[in-house]
């Protein structure tokens, strides 16, 4: 049985730990608010962009692949997976969900290493893939909590250039999608070539394209693809903060449980010591009589 002093020390250290996790929970909550706000701002832009791109794409003749390289499906020799993770950990199953999903997906779809490549953000993901010897095309480990648009677009351009230069023929995006503060799900969507545009029904509007459709697509599609990556980074960031908040909350709860438990055994030990002392005094007095 541990001595009273041991238990006391343990209680003190657990209390300190719970203070830290509680602070981290609050920091995550504040950051989540900000991340949600910027995701909201961005969605206005994204919706508009999608609307315009979709209305042009729906006007294109079906099965016509020559219009723009980003719309054309070509035989897939190499697939790139853009996996978004984070830098610090302490966010529950946030990273492992994404990484496990990616691992299974790759194991399922590919036989040899030459058929795929991984692009990863966040140190956790980078270490995971490097340790397991996956081909990593490049990575980005300096994603800030507040995502800078220019920075994100620079990264997005780098990713998209792989597709433009025909180094890869398909680009998938795998990240945690933010649903609400307590739940996130892994999403896997195909970013390039853009295939899901004409699936959704769009309001028919007969736009004139100035100077012509091809020119408009030429400047619009890169904007759209970059925007998608930026949007995914924002979404993943919101999900990360939410996951961290939940993880830290349960850590604080656990710490409180442990403190309760330890206080109970501390009091028991204290009582036992007092009882023993009394017995000893009584015993000593009885021996004198």
């Amino acid at each position, binding site marked *: 049985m541990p001595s009273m002093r041991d238990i006391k020390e343990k209680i003190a250290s657990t209390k300190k730990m719970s203070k830290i996790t509680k602070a981290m929970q609050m920091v995550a909550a504040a950051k989540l608010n900000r991340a949600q706000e910027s995701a909201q701002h961005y969605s206005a832009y*994204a919706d*508009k962009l999608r609307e315009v791109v979709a209305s*042009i794409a729906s006007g294109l003749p079906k099965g016509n692949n020559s219009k723009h390289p980003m719309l054309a499906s070509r035989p897939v020799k190499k697939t790139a997976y853009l996996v978004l993770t984070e830098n610090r950990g302490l966010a529950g199953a946030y990273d492992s969900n994404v990484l496990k999903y990616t691992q299974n997906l790759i194991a399922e779809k590919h036989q040899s290493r030459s058929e795929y490549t991984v692009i990863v953000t966040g140190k956790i993901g980078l270490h995971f893939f490097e340790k397991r010897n996956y081909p990593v095309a490049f990575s980005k480990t300096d994603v800030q909590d507040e995502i800078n648009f220019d920075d994100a677009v620079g990264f997005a351009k780098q990713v998209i250039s792989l597709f433009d230069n025909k180094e890869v023929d398909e680009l998938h995006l795998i990240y945690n999608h933010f649903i609400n503060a307590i739940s996130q799900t892994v999403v896997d969507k195909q970013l390039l070539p853009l295939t899901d545009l004409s699936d959704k029904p769009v309001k028919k509007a007969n736009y004139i*394209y*100035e100077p012509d459709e091809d020119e*408009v697509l030429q400047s619009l599609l890169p904007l759209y693809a970059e*925007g998608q990556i930026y949007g995914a980074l924002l979404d993943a960031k919101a999900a990360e903060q939410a996951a961290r908040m939940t993880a830290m909350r349960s850590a604080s709860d656990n710490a409180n449980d442990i403190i309760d438990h330890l206080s109970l055994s501390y009091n028991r030990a204290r009582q036992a010591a007092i009882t023993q002392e009394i017995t000893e005094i009584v015993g000593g007095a009885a021996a004198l009589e």
Partner: protein
Amino acid sequence: MSTVHTDIVTPAGKVYEGDVHMVCVRATSGEMGVLPHHIPIVAPLEIALVHLKHEDENHIDYAAVHGGFIQVSRDKITILSEAAEMKDQIDVKRAEKARDDAQAQLATLHATSEGYAEALRKLKRSELRLSTAAIDGSVPEA
């Protein structure tokens, strides 16, 4: 005089929202002035100044729009761009610094080297910001 609802939207949120009488933009194919009830049109934009003329002719808003495109539909005009600022939102000091940086960068680069186009674009953006911020709010005598 009629008006049309106009938005300027960037990834960081709506920069401008309001009813205006005429929107003047510089598309890649040339200058364009859009009045209410314009036929639906989509056009990519240059890095250039956008004039938003209100019903009251003495009232013009200026915005620095860095590329993107304009979408005119039946009842509204939307300008989508990766970056845009209204005249009074421009940080002149930052723009001056960006211009100096870009000029210094251009001086060391050759027209064919990597990063030249990027630096040139940076220069264009900062110059647009500065010239927009420098516009005198009063309407010039016709």
